[in-house]
């Protein structure tokens, strides 16, 4: 199957950035597009949930949260071989959390092939963003003398932009249902993919601006950023099989596990673990893991899913 055109937009941005083009999208456009994507993903999930929700989802959400926590601790353990506690904890939080855009590209990948997935995957996306951030801060502070403003942290994490928009979209989609949402679909559904393409153009530019810092961050981080997604995607598939997800759902859970946060996590860690070096985590998460997942990971995870699910 040829490359998804939205990925071509990412490559265009990456190329323009690396060639030091003066192309720069306005910051307000970037923020507006991310608001749009979050609402659209939420709405879609909410509408699907309204039709298909079953009580078993509550259990599944618990399992998925546990997966996020486990991934964070695992990443931390791996990173501690080489890095100081604060840096290891901060990077672990990025990798235990998820990337909304990688998820969106994953759904686009499925849509191109007409493969369905369980509606609760959107819910999983929403609930997996936060726990890793709290675990990351705990790992950084264990045994440390420094006090953490847990209340403020919880507030920031739970009421951060992406959680509010994802959860809000889910709720609105759920309440309004398919017929209620219909009048909104020309924007949130029909334009989803082209808007994603614009967003990925910008992501390419941003990724290019982070690649320079990779050289300074060393081989260990580089290997971590490329190998851990592979490992985590397998763990995601394992949990998916325990939960009895379909091939499409299992693939998306693998994508979630393999993806790393580059919006919520950097902001939360910068405030809660300020002594960690943000250049390190961004170089790994945004400079390597994000493009790797987009270009190689997504087709790979799908191949593995097909192998196991026999799809």
């Amino acid at each position: 199957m040829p490359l998804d055109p939205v990925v071509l937009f990412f490559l265009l941005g990456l190329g323009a950035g690396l060639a030091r083009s003066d192309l720069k999208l306005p910051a307000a456009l970037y923020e507006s597009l991310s608001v749009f994507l979050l609402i659209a993903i939420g709405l879609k999930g909410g509408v699907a949930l309204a039709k298909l929700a079953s009580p078993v989802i509550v259990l599944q959400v618990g399992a998925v949260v546990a997966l996020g926590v486990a991934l964070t601790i695992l990443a931390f353990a791996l990173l501690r071989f080489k890095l100081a506690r604060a840096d290891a904890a901060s990077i672990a939080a990025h990798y235990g959390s998820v990337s909304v855009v990688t998820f969106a590209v994953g759904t686009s990948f499925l849509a191109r092939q007409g493969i369905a997935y369980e509606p609760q995957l959107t819910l999983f996306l929403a609930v997996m963003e936060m726990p890793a951030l709290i675990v990351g801060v705990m790992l950084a502070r264990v045994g440390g003398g420094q006090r953490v403003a847990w209340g403020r942290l919880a507030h920031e994490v739970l009421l951060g932009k992406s959680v509010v928009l994802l959860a809000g979209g889910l709720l609105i989609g759920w309440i309004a249902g398919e017929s209620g949402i219909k009048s909104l679909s020309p924007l949130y559904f029909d334009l989803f993919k082209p808007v994603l393409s614009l967003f990925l153009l910008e992501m390419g530019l941003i990724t290019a601006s982070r690649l320079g810092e990779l050289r300074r961050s060393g081989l260990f981080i580089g290997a971590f950023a490329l190998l851990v997604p592979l490992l985590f995607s397998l763990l995601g598939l394992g949990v998916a099989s325990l939960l009895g997800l379909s091939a499409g759902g299992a693939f998306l859970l693998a994508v979630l596990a393999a993806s790393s946060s580059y919006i919520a996590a950097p902001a939360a860690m910068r405030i809660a673990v300020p002594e960690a070096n943000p250049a390190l985590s961004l170089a790994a998460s945004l400079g390597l893991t994000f493009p790797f997942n987009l270009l190689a990971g997504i087709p790979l995870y799908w191949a593995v899913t097909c192998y196991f699910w026999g799809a």
Partner: protein
Amino acid sequence: MDYHPKKLLTIVCEAVLEAPLTRDIQRLGAQGYTVIDARGGGHYGVKRAAWSFDRNIRVEVICDAEVADAIATHVAACYAPDYGLVLYVGDVGVMRPGLF
């Protein structure tokens, strides 16, 4: 015109500090503050303001010398070690000294 001497304290730092910093500034006795979006370069690389995490702010406070000292000391202790930031103080004159 009669101007009353005050200090103008300016901090340029990562945008992520906006909420805690402005909270601290008011807690330490300033009557107000002004924030402006900025980009820039320094020892920790270039901030192009292309996306949320790549942005600086420039915070300006007019206050008495003691308040300026308190803010500067607090910033030096709590933020300067971990964040790329610049702080400088200058002299200005204001018309209505009671406001600051």
